[in-house]
């Protein structure tokens, strides 16, 4: 187990380095803009006159060498008037979001729960169904069931998400009126925002359960059905394919013969000997999918009008709010890196060959 510990420590030491690499990458993209362009981005109220802009460029050193600017961006700058240090990515300051009308962190705090809720509800059926059907498909290799599932997964894989999303929205909302877009109905929104309703997580469905409000839970779920189906439909198909091929590979391994030669039933051969091996790559893929969902799904959130991270990114990009886009990118990188760290640790836990290297 001590080697497991050193494995985790090694990965933790790498994490800050990766984050710094990300900041360098993002900053170099930013420095492709001219000082004039950046003045107009960084300053809340753009001065009308050219001279004032030049003054600001001088004041904030926007024509200094890029490394100097990078350091200032990371560490923050001293306000010459008040003497306080302002900004600074290292100090956790990602700037002001025009789109969200708050600091980038505040807006992320507001937007993340909707995305997290969507990710949570999508991940459960997606991972469950994807893995289960992948195993079924592999165990019935080349039989009718396998063929049917493969066709389904190819269809799922090849329909673009905006097409699928719009079709389900048109059919289940516009035509049948079953599942509306948005997060909650108006009456439910009012309850949720009232003082009797305690916001534990800001995920409506979870909070509704915790507050014992089944009616609101039902309303939240009704709003979640279509985006969840849309997202899960994309990813279960992929997960099915990954699981299937990993399982097929495992079923061809020599140790399957050993397991059968021991007198294990076919069921136990699969459960005890095949699955722990076959699921190793699937865990990685599934976890990375979950991270992807947490980073926000631009198209799905936009189609279903969900105020999450994905639609925040889309809105910022459309209004050329570069500060927000950069902030979201930094945040998503953080999630991605931490998520990858967790996946790596998980990988070490489930695969003894890696853990003990």
């Amino acid at each position, binding site marked *: 187990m001590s080697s497991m510990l050193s494995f985790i420590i090694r990965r933790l030491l790498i994490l800050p380095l990766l984050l710094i690499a990300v900041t360098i990458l993002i900053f170099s993209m930013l420095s492709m803009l001219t000082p004039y362009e950046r003045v107009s981005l960084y300053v809340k109220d753009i001065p009308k006159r050219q001279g004032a802009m030049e003054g600001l460029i001088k004041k904030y050193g926007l024509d200094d060498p890029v490394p100097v600017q990078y350091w200032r961006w990371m560490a923050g700058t001293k306000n010459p008037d008040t003497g306080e240090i302002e900004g600074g990515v290292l100090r956790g300051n990602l700037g002001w979001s025009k789109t969200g009308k708050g600091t980038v962190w505040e807006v992320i705090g507001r937007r993340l729960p909707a995305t997290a809720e969507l990710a949570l509800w999508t991940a459960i059926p997606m991972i469950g169904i994807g893995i289960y059907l992948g195993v079924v498909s592999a165990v019935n290799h080349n039989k009718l069931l396998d063929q049917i599932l493969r066709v389904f997964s190819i269809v799922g894989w090849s329909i673009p998400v905006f097409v699928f999303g719009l079709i389900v929205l048109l059919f289940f909302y516009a035509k049948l009126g079953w599942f509306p877009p948005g997060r909650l109905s108006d009456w439910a929104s009012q309850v949720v925002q009232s003082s009797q309703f305690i916001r534990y997580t800001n995920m409506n469905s979870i909070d509704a359960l915790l507050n014992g409000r089944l009616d609101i839970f039902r309303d939240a779920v009704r709003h979640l059905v279509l985006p969840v189906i849309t997202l899960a439909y994309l990813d279960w198909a992929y997960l099915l394919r990954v699981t299937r091929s990993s399982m097929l590979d495992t079923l061809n391994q020599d*140790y399957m*013969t050993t397991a059968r*030669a*021991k007198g294990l039933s076919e069921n136990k051969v699969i459960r005890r000997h095949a699955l722990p*091996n076959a699921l190793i790559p699937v865990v990685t893929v599934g976890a990375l999918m979950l991270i992807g969902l947490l980073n926000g799904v631009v198209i799905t959130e936009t189609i279903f009008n969900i105020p999450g991270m994905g639609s925040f990114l889309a809105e910022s990009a459309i209004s050329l709010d570069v500060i927000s886009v950069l902030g979201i990118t930094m945040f998503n990188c953080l999630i991605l890196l931490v998520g990858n760290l967790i996946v790596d640790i998980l990988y070490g836990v489930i695969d*003894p060959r890696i853990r003990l290297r």
Partner: protein
Amino acid sequence: MTEILSVQGLETQFRTREGIVHAVNGVSFNLDEGETLGIVGESGCGKSVSVMSMLRLIPSPPGQVVAGKALYQGKDLLKMTDDEIRHVRGAQISMVFQDPMTFFNPVLTIGKQVSEPLEIHNGMNKKMAYERAAKVLEMVGIPKAKERLEDYPHQFSGGMRQRVMIAMALITNPQLLIADEPTTALDVTIQAQIVELVQRLREELGMAIIWITHDLGIIAGLAKRVAVMYGGCIVEEAEVKELYANPMHPYTRGLLGSLPRMDESDHRRLVSIDGMPPILMEKPKSCPFLSRCTYAVDHCKTENPALKSLSPNHKVACWVDPNTGREF
């Protein structure tokens, strides 16, 4: 001695894209309790498929046992229900495989894998099964066996892994151990140690053994009888000494002739006879060895010779008496 296994006319085919591969074409042999039978032959001649067919471990599709019987203590393994044969596998007939790395599950501990047969066949709980596993591992010569139960296969050396596999096979005290080229993947000194170990265990436990190999040197020290396979058939079967002193099939002669001389090395392997073993896309109508045989006569082209007894302990499948060069 009572007979423990009687294989009769076993035939196994594989349906492949290129056609039907006739891997085993009527293999018959018997085995007494506590007896050791060697099966030798070049790679691809059907040794593994023969024994795997007996235990119904051939992947199907593409494989299929199309004819024959495999009577284990009088009951046909090929006609048993899935449940019945499961109670034979690993409990009464155990297998040891060639590559001790790939035949172990890489993500399960040795303790779990070695004790598993006890758990499924003897209904033992984990604690007891692990205790017994530690004992058996000690018996096969794993140092500090108890401490190594939580280790994984890749933490053992090749030779140690093969010892572990032998322990896993013998933990249920089977009547019959089938070892499919158990030393092929190991280097020479380790091979000798494994053979010694199996000899010792055989004395202690008294199980019958089928030992598949292409190392004739190993067979001579282990087995009482040897069956030589070629093209999915047993082409000669005799007591070890008789086979060495008086090989009757041209293929066996080739094998022995291509060995280094006895006094040069104890390790006599099958080297090469000119030509390649056949992949049989149809049931052989002529002798499968025909294309490589220097003794062939016309009869060999029209009919595949059956295994026939020359004396009570010597059988051969050949039209020609190689000592005279004429048909029997």
